[in-house]
């Protein structure tokens, strides 16, 4: 059996590879198809859904749900705007805070950098839970305002900070030394040397933060009761249980007799919620995965 590696053996590999490839393909399809189905439902005519259920190949298409959604003044658009605002502002602020802190912890001239790292690390192990967190947010008046969607929970993530710090520790010390000899102060070294060099790491954590902000509804469910402040994710969550949220849209459509496109409209809202992620997909592939692999292997 062994020893003589024959053509038959190689053929056996080829067959087993084919089988493995088939299962990988199957799992990939399973990952993709439910999303495709959701999209197909969103462009299906409502009465067709009522009659035939959800289908990959609807008998009659309709863009009515999307047309309704993008009509001026709809609350879907408003929540969408809130989400964009929160994501952009939150991500920028978070990256700045994270990058600055990472620089200090990677700066070997700072004698107490390990103590600072410990200060940040301890709460990662000992968490007091959501109740104290909620009371502190209330105490800081982070209720029913935009800051409540931006500041709590998401603005600073120690994992991301450690990721940037690890990257910065890879910058050779000689760069700092030569710059110091040339008369550069700490600020110049940070902003002219370290941050430009660490752009890939900052871009990675930027994507982490951006995705976390876009997908967040925790802050909303805990701290926001005002419907005009709902981010799109929380709007979507509420939409599932409360069809009444759609009433505005049906009113806008101006026709009570027509079947309200409840099912397709729900799915259309889910699809537009995923939209930005699909747009950012190439960047996610490039930076996100790398960052995650580094983070999990090293830290």
């Amino acid at each position: 059996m062994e020893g003589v590696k024959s053509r038959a053996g190689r053929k056996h590999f080829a067959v087993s590879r084919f089988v493995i490839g088939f299962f990988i393909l199957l799992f990939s399809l399973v990952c993709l198809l439910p999303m495709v189905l959701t999209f197909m439902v969103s462009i299906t005519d409502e009465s067709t859904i009522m009659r035939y259920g959800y289908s990959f190949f609807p008998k009659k298409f309709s863009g009515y749900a999307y047309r309704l959604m993008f009509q001026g003044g709809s609350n879907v658009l408003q929540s969408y705007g809130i989400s964009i605002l929160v994501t952009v502002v939150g991500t920028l602020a978070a990256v700045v805070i994270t990058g600055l802190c990472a620089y200090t912890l990677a700066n070997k001239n700072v004698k107490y950098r390990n103590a600072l790292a410990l200060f940040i690390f301890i709460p990662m192990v000992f968490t007091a839970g959501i109740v104290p967190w909620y009371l502190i947010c209330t105490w800081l008046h982070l209720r029913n305002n935009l800051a409540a969607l931006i500041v709590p929970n998401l603005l600073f993530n120690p994992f991301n900070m450690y990721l940037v710090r690890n990257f910065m520790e890879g910058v050779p010390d000689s760069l700092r030394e030569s710059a110091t000899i040339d008369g550069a102060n700490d600020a110049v070294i940070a902003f002219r040397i370290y941050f430009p060099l660490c752009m890939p790491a900052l871009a990675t954590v930027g994507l982490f933060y951006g995705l976390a902000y876009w997908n967040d509804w925790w802050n909303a469910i805990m701290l926001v009761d005002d419907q005009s402040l709902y981010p799109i994710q929380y709007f979507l969550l509420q939409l599932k249980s409360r069809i009444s949220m759609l009433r505005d849209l049906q009113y806008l459509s101006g026709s009570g007799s027509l079947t309200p496109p409840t099912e397709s409209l729900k799915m259309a809202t889910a699809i537009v919620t995923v939209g930005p992620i699909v747009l950012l997909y190439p960047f996610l592939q490039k930076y996100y995965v790398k960052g995650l692999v580094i983070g999990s292997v090293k830290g």
Partner: protein
Amino acid sequence: MATNAKPASSKEKRGFLADVRKNRFSYLIALPALLYVLIFSYFSYPYMLIAFQKFQYNRSGIFDILFHGDWCGWDNFKFFFASQAAFRVTVNTIWLNILFIVTGTVASLLIALGLNELRCKWFVKTSQSVMLFPNYISWVVVSYILYTLFSQQYGLANKFLALLHMDPVNWYTTPGAWPWILVLMRVWKGAGMNAIIYLAAITGIDQTLYEAASIDGAGRFKLMTKITLPLITPMIVILTLLSVGKIMYGDFGMIYALVGDNGTLYSTTDIIDTYIFRALRQVGDPSQAMAMGLFQSAIGFVMVFGSNWITKRIYPEGALY
């Protein structure tokens, strides 16, 4: 205030202050992050005491909690443990986590090993990209996808049952099916990403080992079981123990997005985190919620230290601290 909480400051205060003066800029720019941690993490610890108090909304500042609290001993705990929910949510949390850990590890390992066997580059790359997609979307969107599959009237699952001439099932009122539905969605969402983490470890293995073994006549299956698996076992153990450390903590985002306030499913899906959420936001009793949270933290704490201790014993380099 800020300096008091820094661990090193008490012993070598002069040294610390001198260092701050010397590296003014560095300390200054780290301040936002440090203040954030101080306020949202360290300030939260005193609040844990409300588990032993009767909470009053008009007295909810830190100093009120510490000095003017209405202490009531273990009453909040007694109330919680007297209810049937305590046992139910604890068992659900642990059981669901065990299911997630086992199925998640097996699924992502199989995918990683499979991807490692394939040689067609574009296929591997494309399938990886596709597998990662569910990882990026929120549980709320997943709940809609779930609905397209399991909706009673229109869903694909019931269409499939109809093909087999079986009666449609109203999934959203069938608690027994839900642990498995949750496992399914969990694997669907997370296995691709975890597979890629495992794959990164596998591709990091020294290729000469494989070459040497091939020359000695080992087949692909042998290479997998005798080289790949043993060499990534430390990583599997470490990642598993990390999850075991978190076994008392459920995924609130997942459960609440998929199950929500659907009371008929609570018997199999209600977990500690959703229970605390309801006690806090719907019942409106922070003390009650905190007692529950403290119970969760206490056991969680033991689990984290226990699993870390075990990790240290087996693979010292893999321990968290």
